[in-house]
C-alpha cells in the first residue's frame, strides 16, 4: 500500500493511466471501427469499458497496446505515448486481449515461463517464485503441470490472468476476463480485481456485462458503434438517474390529479397505475395526500431505474446479447 501512495504522489495532477485523443481506426476502406475516441482512465480507477460485442472495444484495446496502428489520433498509457514508447510502458502493464492464447502442448507453468523469458524487465532468478505466486492468485496451482490443451475454458482464462500478474503492474487491461468462467470463477476473478485495485493498480476492464460494471467498477465508459457514448464515474452516472413514484390504483385519474397538484412533473397515467418524477418530494407526504383525497391506493413505491435502463437509452440496445 505504501508503494501505491508514493506512486500516486509522484504523479502530475490531471495525469491519466490511459488517455486517448481522437483515436480512430478504419480497416481498409470500410467504415470506422473506432471513431474519434477520447478516453480518460484516472489512476487508481477500475474502469468499466462497456459496449455490445462488435462495438470497437477490442480494436481500441489493440490500438492502446500497439498491436494495430491507429488511422488517426493519439494514445497514452501511463503517460507514455503509444506505440512509440511501448518498450517503456508495456512492462508496467498486464494485458488480456481477446481471450487466452498459449502453446497447446506446453503445460501452464511452461507457458508462463515462456512469457517471462520474453520479458526483459523481470529477474530470471525469481521466475519460479513469481509463477507460483501468480498461479496461486488465480487458483490454478493444482493444474499447473497439465498441458494447456487439456485446460477448460475457465482454466485457460485464469492462466491468461496469471500471465498478466507475473510481475508488478501499474495498469491491467483486461478484455472480457470472466468469459467462459462458471459463476464461482466469475466471483473469484471479480474479487481478485477488487484486491488488485485496493493495491493501487488501475484496471481497464472491457466487458459486455453490465452486472460486472455495477459490481466492480468505479468508472464507466460506454462505447457504441465505434463511438464513446458516455464516460464518467459510476456515482455521477447514478446521480443522473431520476427516480419515479409509482401508484397502483383503480382511480387512475384521481391519483394523477393529486400527484400533479402536489407539484410532480411528467405524470403518466396508465392502466391501473400512475407514475411521475418524484423529484425532491418526500414519498410519505405523497401517500398522505393520496389517502386524504380518498384515492384507493393498492400499491405505492419509488422506482429507481437501474443502470441497464440508462445504458439501453444511451445505446438503443441491450448488453447481454450474444453472450
Amino acid at each position, binding site marked *: 500500500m505504501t508503494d501505491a501512495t508514493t506512486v500516486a504522489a509522484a504523479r502530475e495532477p490531471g495525469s491519466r493511466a490511459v488517455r486517448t485523443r481522437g483515436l480512430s481506426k478504419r480497416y481498409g476502406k470500410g467504415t470506422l471501427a473506432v471513431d474519434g475516441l477520447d478516453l480518460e482512465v484516472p489512476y487508481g480507477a477500475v474502469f468499466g469499458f462497456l459496449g455490445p460485442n462488435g462495438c470497437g472495444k477490442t480494436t481500441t484495446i489493440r490500438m492502446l497496446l500497439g498491436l494495430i496502428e491507429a488511422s488517426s489520433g493519439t494514445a497514452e498509457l501511463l503517460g507514455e505515448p503509444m506505440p512509440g514508447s*511501448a518498450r517503456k510502458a508495456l512492462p508496467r502493464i498486464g494485458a488480456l486481449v481477446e481471450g487466452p492464447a498459449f*502453446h497447446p502442448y506446453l503445460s501452464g507453468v511452461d507457458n508462463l515461463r515462456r512469457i517471462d523469458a520474453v520479458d526483459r524487465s523481470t529477474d530470471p532468478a525469481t521466475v519460479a517464485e513469481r509463477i507460483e505466486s501468480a498461479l496461486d*492468485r488465480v487458483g490454478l496451482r493444482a493444474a499447473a503441470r497439465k498441458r494447456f490443451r487439456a485446460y477448460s475454458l475457465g482454466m485457460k482464462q485464469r492462466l491468461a490472468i496469471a500471465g498478466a500478474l507475473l510481475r508488478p503492474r501499474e495498469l491491467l487491461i483486461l478484455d472480457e476476463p470472466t468469459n467462459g468462467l462458471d459463476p464461482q470463477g466469475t466471483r473469484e476473478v471479480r474479487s481478485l480485481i477488487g484486491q488488485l485495485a485496493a493495491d493501487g493498480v488501475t484496471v481497464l476492464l472491457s466487458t459486455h456485462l453490465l452486472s460486472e460494471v455495477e459490481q466492480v467498477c468505479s468508472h464507466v465508459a460506454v462505447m457504441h458503434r465505434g463511438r464513446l457514448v458516455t464516460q464518467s464515474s459510476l456515482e455521477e452516472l447514478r446521480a443522473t438517474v431520476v427516480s419515479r413514484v409509482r401508484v397502483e390504483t383503480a382511480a387512475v385519474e384521481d391519483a394523477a390529479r393529486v400527484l400533479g397538484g402536489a407539484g410532480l412533473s411528467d405524470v403518466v397515467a396508465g392502466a391501473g397505475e400512475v407514475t411521475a418524477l418524484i423529484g425532491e418530494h418526500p414519498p410519505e407526504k405523497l401517500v398522505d395526500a393520496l389517502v386524504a383525497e380518498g384515492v384507493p391506493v393498492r400499491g405505492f413505491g419509488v422506482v429507481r431505474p437501474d443502470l441497464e435502463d440508462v445504458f439501453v437509452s444511451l445505446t438503443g440496445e441491450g448488453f447481454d446479447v450474444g453472450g
Partner: protein
Amino acid sequence: MSAAEGVSTVDAGWAPRRRFSTRFLRSEMGLIARRRRNQAGLAVLAVIPVIIAVVMAATRPAPGSGPPLFTAMLDNGLITVLAGLSIEMSLFLPLAVSILAGDAIAGEASTGTLRYLLTVPAGRVRLLAVKFGGIVAATFAAVGVIALTGAVMGVALFGTGDMVTLSGTTLPFGEALGRVGIAVLYVVMCLVAVAAIGLFVSTLTEQPIGAAVAMLMFIVLSQILGALDDLDWLHPFLITNYWSSWADLLRDPPAWDQMLLGAVSAAVWTAFGLSAAWARLTTKDITS
C-alpha cells in the same frame, strides 16, 4: 483463490533490468526442440544416411556402376556424409527448414500467442531476430545430426580409407574431414537463405502450413526453372542454383569460384528475406 503475499503489485521504480539477455532465444530453441513433430522430423532426417549406408554396404555396387559419390563411399566412410546431404538437400532439408520458418510467425499468430508476445513486449524486430536465430540453430542441429549419423555409419561400415577426389588424387583422412566440414557449413548457409525467405512468407499469413507449402513450392519451382537450359540467364538468380556446388570440394585442389558465388547468392537471398520480413512485421496490424 488466496491472496498472494510477498509480491507487491505496484512497482514505481521500474527500469529495464538489462539490455541484453539470451533468455528469449533459449526459450525459442527449447520450444523448437521440445516439440514432438520436430523431434520426429529430426529422427527421419537422421535415418536417411543410415539407410543409404546400409543399402550400399549390402549391395556393394562395382565402381562406375552408380553415382560416383555413392561408389566412392565404399573406399571412405566420410563420403556417406556428403551422399546423405546431397540426397536430403533435394527435399527433406528444405522441407524441414520451410516448416520451421513457416511456423515462426504464422504459428504464433494461429495460436494467438503472437499478440501476447508483442504485449510483453517482445519488440517486433527482436521477435524476428529471435525467431530467425531459432531456425538457424535448428538448421545447424539438423545438418549436424545428418553429418554425425552419416559419419558414424560410414566409418563403421566402410572405414577411413583415402578419399579419392574427382581429379584422381587421394586425400588423407584429416584433409577429407576438413572438406566434409566445409561442405556441411556450405549446406547450412544455403538453408539459412531458405529460413530467411520462409520467415518473410510466415509474416504474410496466419497459417503455418500454408507458409511452409508456399515456401516449398517456391523452392521446387526454382529447381524446375534451374533444369531448363533455355533459361540459363536466369539460373544465377535462383535460390537453388548453387546448392550442389560443394561437390567442387571433391576436386584437388578444390574449385572455389562456384562456392563463392553460392555464398554471395545465399547472403543476398538471406538479406532480402530478412528485410522483407522486417518491413512486413514492423508495419503489420496484429489482428490474430
